[in-house]
């Protein structure tokens, strides 16, 4: 597991939480047992003090302003680090699937089917859990803009996997809002 970065501990900005939660949602769309896997990984990685059960895990993710039920408080740096580590471990677990989605060497028809399946599941999860009046959600569900945004999320998951993925993902989630 990668060491924590040396920069001081700051809470993740709201936009970073939004992106992290969407990446976790993509992991759930790729793996039907993704929700269970998150809880299991949290226990496996020793985060039971920070995220003792699925309700606490869900509450931290609800700091995403795009959610149907949102929470105003932001996760503490330790809690957001735990969520990033879970995302990193999920991305590692799903890496072959992420790779096959991103590869241009795959047969185009098969690749299109995989993307269609993933985008369909992601849309279902978005409709179920997210506030459909928010512009960010509407863009993800938009037939024109949605596919490129979904691809960006899959690309981000692929580059967040592996031993250096935690530090890379954390640094990118701390980016300022433009």
């Amino acid at each position, binding site marked *: 597991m*990668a060491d924590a*970065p*040396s*920069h001081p501990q700051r809470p993740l900005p709201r936009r970073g939480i939004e992106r992290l939660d969407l990446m976790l949602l993509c992991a759930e769309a790729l793996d039907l047992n993704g929700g269970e896997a998150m809880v299991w990984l949290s226990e496996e990685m020793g985060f039971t003090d920070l995220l003792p059960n699925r309700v606490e895990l869900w509450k931290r993710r609800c700091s995403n302003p795009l959610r149907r039920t949102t929470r105003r408080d932001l996760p503490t740096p330790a809690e957001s680090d735990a969520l990033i580590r879970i995302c990193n471990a999920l991305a590692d677990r799903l*890496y*072959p699937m*992420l*790779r*096959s989605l*991103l*590869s*241009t*060497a795959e047969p185009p028809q098969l690749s299109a089917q995989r993307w269609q399946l993933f985008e369909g599941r992601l849309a279902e999860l978005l409709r179920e859990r997210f506030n459909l009046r928010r512009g960010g959600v509407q863009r993800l569900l938009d037939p024109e803009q949605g596919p490129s945004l979904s691809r*960006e999320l899959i*690309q*981000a998951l*692929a*580059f*967040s*996997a*592996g*031993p*250096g*993925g935690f*530090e*890379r*993902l*954390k*640094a*990118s989630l*701390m*980016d*300022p809002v*433009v």
Partner: protein
Amino acid sequence: MKLTNRYEQTSCRLQVEGLPDLSAGQGDQTIGILTGFSLDLAGHTELAGQREHLQAMVAAVLPYARQLLSGVPRCCGADSDPVAIRPHAGRHQLELRSSQPDTPPLALQLDDAELADLVRCLDQLRLDPRLALPFEQPPLQPLRRRELRHRQPLAQRIAAPLVGVGVLLLSAVVSALLPLQRPAPAPAANPAAVSSPQRGG
């Protein structure tokens, strides 16, 4: 005794060879002196080089992956460096310049999956405890606001300030056109009221 470490992903195989630097007190299973490396990028080419080439690759590819994660990939590595990488037509162009004269530079077009494989191999190499070599790379920090600015199209970026200025101008024009309410004429002075105060008895 020569040591060999291998790092493998689907489309990428990196192999480093070296010796332990016993004079620096390193263990006999730690590579402290890198004698060479080979990198097999499936479907592209097989490369071989020295320590400085591998360090240049780490220094160019990992910061590029960091920028890619923020959605703003830019060229990493100068023209004089042995390795540079830049976005090119939806792919990633890895440019390799040989230190041998009369050898033209090599440009490889990697897709996202191939680049992700290379990044994972380089991460494994950089964090391998069996390797005692410095791999310089800039600290992983949030990007600056100006580095992220071109993530949004210019029209979207200036739309909000333009609308603000427009609304301000419009409200200034509208308020200038509104007729001003003239002040009511002052009531005529009533000399009787002033000159003959009544005194109560």
